[in-house]
């Protein structure tokens, strides 16, 4: 039982982690939270469904096409919605409401284009299940975990080793100084949003065959991704991943050992307790503004 719960925690933790990573990146670049992050995940799932299940494009090209689409959507979102609002110097909380509006628009478009009903995505792999220590697991889940880890490592190296990643971190830390060093801050911000949307969309396409794709998942994924990012220490990339693990672990193990009815409630009570005892998250991020 323990192994199964751990595996379930790893699966949902890697998805929460990916969404939370998007939250952290966007917070560092723009100082706000993008409450449409969960809906971007669902949108990725729907786009992936169109390529893979409707157009019958093979798995890998389908995923790549989805990634490109999500990258474009993130850039467009930043260029045509977020950046114009910032230019009119609104307060932070007003911009956060704008991201809620974005979430409404995405949900609505999903319903208009794909209909309101949940869609089943055919399996990506020939081998549907595998057995380990007498327990049967879904292969897709393992694939999702693998892709999530690869994605996190990829972003880590991109931010630490590439000059564009370093420019992005510099711009997030001190936009004025970065600008004076010749960094195009507008561009790094846009790319940050694009990467965040891509990571979320990738999570969406990967979970398609496991959970199916639905519109309604978006809001709760936004909340859980946000919870992960904040609990870990808002703005910290590694905190986001840690937070995802903590939240999914809480859910999974309380479902297994206490009650699956109460798992969400227990998880959120635990989130509150963590916040009360660690008001700045598990990994104390210095970047959090007062």
């Amino acid at each position, binding site marked *: 039982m323990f192994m199964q719960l751990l595996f379930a925690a790893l699966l949902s933790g890697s998805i929460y982690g990916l969404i939370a990573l998007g939250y952290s990146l966007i917070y560092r670049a723009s100082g706000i939270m993008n409450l449409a992050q969960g809906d971007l995940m669902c949108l990725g799932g729907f786009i992936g469904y169109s390529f893979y299940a409707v157009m019958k494009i093979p798995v890998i090209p389908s995923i790549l096409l989805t990634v490109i689409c999500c990258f474009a959507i993130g850039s467009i979102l930043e260029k045509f919605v977020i950046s114009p*609002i910032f230019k009119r110097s609104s307060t932070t909380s007003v911009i956060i409401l704008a991201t809620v509006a974005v979430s409404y628009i995405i949900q609505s478009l999903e319903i208009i284009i794909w209909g309101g009903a949940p869609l089943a995505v055919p399996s990506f792999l020939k081998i549907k299940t595998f057995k380990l220590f007498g327990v049967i697991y879904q292969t897709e889940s393992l694939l999702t975990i693998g892709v999530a880890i690869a994605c996190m490592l990829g972003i880590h190296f991109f931010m630490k080793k590439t000059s564009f990643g370093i420019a992005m971190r510099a711009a997030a830390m001190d936009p004025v100084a970065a600008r004076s060093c010749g960094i195009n801050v507008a561009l790094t911000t846009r790319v940050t949003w694009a990467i965040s949307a891509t990571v979320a969309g990738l999570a969406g396409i990967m979970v398609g065959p496991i959970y199916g794709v639905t519109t309604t998942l978006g809001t709760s994924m936004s909340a859980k991704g946000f919870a992960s990012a904040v*609990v870990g220490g808002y703005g910290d990339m590694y905190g986001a991943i840690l937070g995802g693990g903590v939240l999914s672990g809480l859910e999974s193990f309380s479902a297994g050992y206490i009650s699956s009815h109460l798992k969400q409630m227990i998880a959120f009570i635990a989130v509150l307790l963590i916040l009360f005892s660690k008001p700045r998250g598990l990994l104390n991020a210095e970047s959090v*503004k007062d």
Partner: protein
Amino acid sequence: METLSLNRPRYKKYIKFLPLLVVPFLPLLLKNYTYGIMLLCFAQIYVIATTGLDIVYGYTGQITFATSAFFGIGAYGSVLLRKYTAIPMELTILMATLLSALIAMLFAYPVSKLRFAFLSLSTISFNYIFFYFITRSPGGITGDFNGIFVERLKLFGISFKESHHFFYFGLVCVIILVSLKMLLVRSRVGRAFLAIKQNVHAAEGMGINVRKYKVYAFGFYGAYVAFAGTLYAHFVGFISPETFAEEQSVLYLIMAMFGGLGSDWGPVIGSVSIVWLNDILGYFEKYQLLAYGILLILFIVFLPGGVVGEGKKLVAKINELIKGAKNRKEVDAGA
């Protein structure tokens, strides 16, 4: 001292309220349009809730995504007390309101040290916990997902079941509660709230116990929102969990912001406009949410201060223009 508004002739101060005299006659004007009166009743309920939200968010600067939970504490509180005890409705409404204020204050005590994203998450979590509680209540006392039928509003022997009756009761509540908030924010307490919003370090440094005042602000918020919730439950006659879900909390924030934060009339303008707008958008059917989202973004881009905030800016600009023109005239005359 001529700058002090205290010494201005009184009638001038009140002249701008004249158009409001039409409000009590609205049910007569809309006699053949009961649906319209019903919308106004809902708007009144939201005005009360949004006014409470404005105290904690507009004045004290603490963002909260838990409004629908406190709305629900009021609604379920009064309904369950009514259903399982013999307490009269006048008292169950009062008790639910006070209970909510108490819960809000207890919640605010640890929350008062949290900021921004951490504060947002704590209120989101609170709302989720409340939602999971009412959908999986012990012994199913809340009716869980099925909801629960509720006795309609009847106070001191008078029934307010019909919209055009409820309207007048709602109007009295709105007038009293909005006036109380107006008085509160123009006092020592209101100044403390604003000081915390503008500069929390300086507020604490100037002798304001920030935690204490945040707890009070949440108390008012809890009471106002829960009172609105009790009215909602007894007006509609049925409550179910969706009304109190986390997503709904955003609605109150939108109303407060649309009207203008930290203002007397913002909650009123915001609630009435958004209720009316949502109703119109209903005709767009599956494009409703899309239109809503797009309108919301347009509004944020073009009216970031809300109706009242942008209105004030406009008035200031016009005054400046007039002043400039006057000065120029004087210069011309001098030359």
